């Protein structure tokens, strides 16, 4: 079943003298449920911009965007936010953990924003800590963790509310290679369990974890191709 359908997606910024700068041009993409897609391309190609459109962080685009059967392009900003909360998890290159919250509280916060009651939150967070084997770190603050551990927590936070779609923007960009491998192995496992993953990456090695690569250059899709595993 189709998870994501993009049709004629364009993103531009106005410049002086009625000119425009196009970040994305005529993007058409279909992503099926359970796929693990990597978006690659040189700097400035529009990869992160595309990911932020998929994650509904950016609303200044034109075209059609279907998430499942839902026509996102017809939704208002508040409706998109609700849909995002229900269906999408996001992993950031800089982890973006909240520095004033412990690991436990960082994991809990997306559930609290989704009005999950306290006892249920406690149960879910406990399960997630266990699943990611970070129970012993639950009372530590992000500043007390290594980069890899922080990203691990970032991934745990992204999937804690069971999203159907996981978006990752250069998830290993700030990590050592061994830490990066751990994260990518984790992604592989999540994908095997049924989570659809779309990642932005510069790394061929990371892209190889997925089953499809979409190449972007100057805002255009150049050549999507499948990786046979």
């Amino acid at each position: 079943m189709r998870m994501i359908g993009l049709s004629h997606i364009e993103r531009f910024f106005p410049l002086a003298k009625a000119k425009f700068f196009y970040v994305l041009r005529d993007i058409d993409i279909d992503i099926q449920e359970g796929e693990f897609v990597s978006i690659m391309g040189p700097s400035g190609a529009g990869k992160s911009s595309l990911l932020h459109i998929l994650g509904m962080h950016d609303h200044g685009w034109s075209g059609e965007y279907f998430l499942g059967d839902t026509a996102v392009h017809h939704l208002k900003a508040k409706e998109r936010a609700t849909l995002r909360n229900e269906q999408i998890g996001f992993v950031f290159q800089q982890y973006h953990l909240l520095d004033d919250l412990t690991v436990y509280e960082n994991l809990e916060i997306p559930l609290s924003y989704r009005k999950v009651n306290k006892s249920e939150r406690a149960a879910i967070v406990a399960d997630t800590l266990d699943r990611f084997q970070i129970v012993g770190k639950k009372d530590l603050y992000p500043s007390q963790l290594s980069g890899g551990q922080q990203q691990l927590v970032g991934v745990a936070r992204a999937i804690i509310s069971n999203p159907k779609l996981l978006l990752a923007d250069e998830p290993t960009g700030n990590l050592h290679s061994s830490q990066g491998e751990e994260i990518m192995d984790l992604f592989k496992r999540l994908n095997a369990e049924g989570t659809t993953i779309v990642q932005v990456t510069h790394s061929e090695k990371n892209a190889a974890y997925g089953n499809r690569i979409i190449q972007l250059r100057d805002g255009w899709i150049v050549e999507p191709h499948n990786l046979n595993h």
Partner: protein
Amino acid sequence: MLSEIKVALRGLVKTPGFAAIAIATLALAIGANTSVFSLINALLVRPLPYQQPSKLVLIWERFAAQGLDRIPVSPPEYLDLENQFHGCTNIAAFNYETFNLGGGDFPERISGAVVSAALFPLLGVEPIKGRTFAREEQGEGHDDVIVISERLWKRRFNSDPLLVGKSLLLNGRSYTVIGVMPAKFEFPIPLFGVQGNQFAERVDIWKPIAFTPVELKERGSRSYGLIARLRPEVSAATAQAELDTIISNWIRAYPDNYRGGGFGAKVYPFQDQVVGGMRTGLAILLGAVVFVLLIACANLATMLLARASARERELAIRVALGAGPWRLLRQMLTESVLLALTGAGAGIVLSIWGLDLLKRISARTVPRLAEVNVDLEVLVITAIVAVGTGILFGLIPALSSAKPELTEALKEGGRGSTTGARRNLLRNSLVVAEIALALVLLVGAGLLLKSYTRLQNIDPGFDRRSVLTAEIHLSETKYPAPANADYRGGEAMINFWSEALRRVRQLPGVEAAGCTIVLPLSGSNSDSSFAIEGRTLDPNEPGPDEELRVITPDYFKVLKTQLLRGRFFADSDNAEAAQVAIINDALARKYWPNEDAIGKRITFDDPRKDPKWLTIVGIVRSVRHRGLDVEPQPEYYIPVAQRAESSMILAVRSTQDPRSLTSAVRREIQSIDPDQPIANVRTLDAVTADSIAPRRMSVVLLGVFAVIALVLAAVGIFGVISYLVLQRTHEIGVRMALGAQRADVLRLVVGHALKLVGVGTAIGLVLAFFSTRALAVLLYNVGAFDVATFAIVTVVLAATALLASYIPALRATKADPMIALSHNA
């Protein structure tokens, strides 16, 4: 909610500098508000400590044609009203009295009052021991009973449980204590703007009224205050209408006593009389502290805006994780309300200290000030203000951050969002508002200070330096009152004053000594009507009634009052000599504008019935008696040797610190009479200072608030310019790399501050122009638009603001261009 509080606390603990400045700012602002709320609550809002105080009224008379307003009533008039005024359930008369309390280790002068038996039931306060007066105890020969205050009972009698029923010696006469009134009971309360004892001390002894036969005959001898309780169904307006009818009847029945027209009586709500005069001053103070609070809010809003910029990433993450705008708002407002409540707690402590200090300085001269405290009502209002303040200063930064631009904030190397420009505009606007409000406060304080300084420097017509004063009240038993109604006789009194002055003059350091019945600027007054020889009394015109001073010959020497014509009194102006008087130039101008008043004669008697004439022998320069800001009134002086008085104020001019004479003076007085205390010892400087104490309180308070506002505005400017320098570090680096010198960087930064100060000052001047009109009633000899004050204040504020911006500007010039260039723009 608990998690928001936890996160907010953690955030504040992580930034102790910011938290400390914010809490200190709030403590000052909310503390100032709490203090003024306490003042307003105690002085204006809290009802007087009597039963149903809204039904209590005072009744004062007036002689409009003679410019006499709010004057007391005479005993016959009181008795008539008791019978005729049906709109009241009770009506009681009262007058101040002083008592020399004998016995014990030392005699003591105690403030007291003579009151009708109806007074205590009228006020509805029960004694804590014993009883109050019965009606039969009112009247000569039956009035040997007293009620004392709990304060006196504890202080002087160690709360003796058996005191009720015991006798005390007052003014040489024995009185039985029949009751003790509770500590909270106070009557009469010092009343502003009413002829009589403006700064009377708290009363500790009450004695029943006992009108003498002379008093009962003299319808025109007015010295008693009247208080009444209106019937529940009777309004003040209805009571006034009935009173007007009664007065009309009196005028018809006793034409000789109400000559000249314009006589009337008015009903005054009691609470209004006690503190009504303070309403304007308190309203101005309330306005001032609200300004201070707004400035503090603006300050905190700018600090939180800067903080919000730094938290943009965190807020974007929260939104990306699912937080709605309301959750973000709640998070940020929790922090600001928490800051406000902590600041309020510190502010309440500051307020308690401040009010204590204020009470110590001004309790003597501001009615009910001793009752002011931070009570539950004030705490509740403070808590509401704190929460409201927290929301107010937190709202702008919270709203500006509630919908962060996610893409910019979340991207790698994201420089923050385009909301930066909007926040800068908000910050600059808030600082401009702070400067404008601070200017208004400073102008107000400046005007009051100028007015107060002018008042202090007024020449009152006498030299107030180096003079000690002390009240002496002779007991009627040892020093019997003159037998005649005209005050002649009373040799015992006259001899006492003469001997007292003789002894005091011999003390080392004494330059001159004299006595008077009222001191200038003391709040007390005395007047009497008289007739002028050769001028026929027109039945339709009021006779002369001017302020009377009974003095000893050297009194003018003590005060260094200037003699304009004629002579001063001498020792030879005694009871056997011809009666004499001295007048001031105001009285001379009023009654003998085109002739020499020396040699003219006046009398207190009916000039048609063999009067005793007083010859005017001297004209002195007028002194300011009613107030430094009140033009001198006509006054005339009579020697005590020709008009005996039992209560006088001793005034002693000294070559050294006059206070050093206190013990010696007391010793000399008690060497004449061991049972004779002296009381209310103070220098004439202190008397003068007390007369303007309420103004002083306004000046001090407004001045303090204005300084707080100035400091807050300076902190605001400092914060904004510091942040500007931080934001423009990269730009400054580029400029320096391109050749900008230190002066160019200073100009860039200070120039920005100048723009903010300029706009703020311009707006502030316009606001000040409109708002200082409210101050006009408090100003003396200073216009509400005094150009000099406006100019000085503007310069001071601008200079302070520029100084505050100079420090971060200087920091900017020291930046290393290479470091600055690598700073994220």
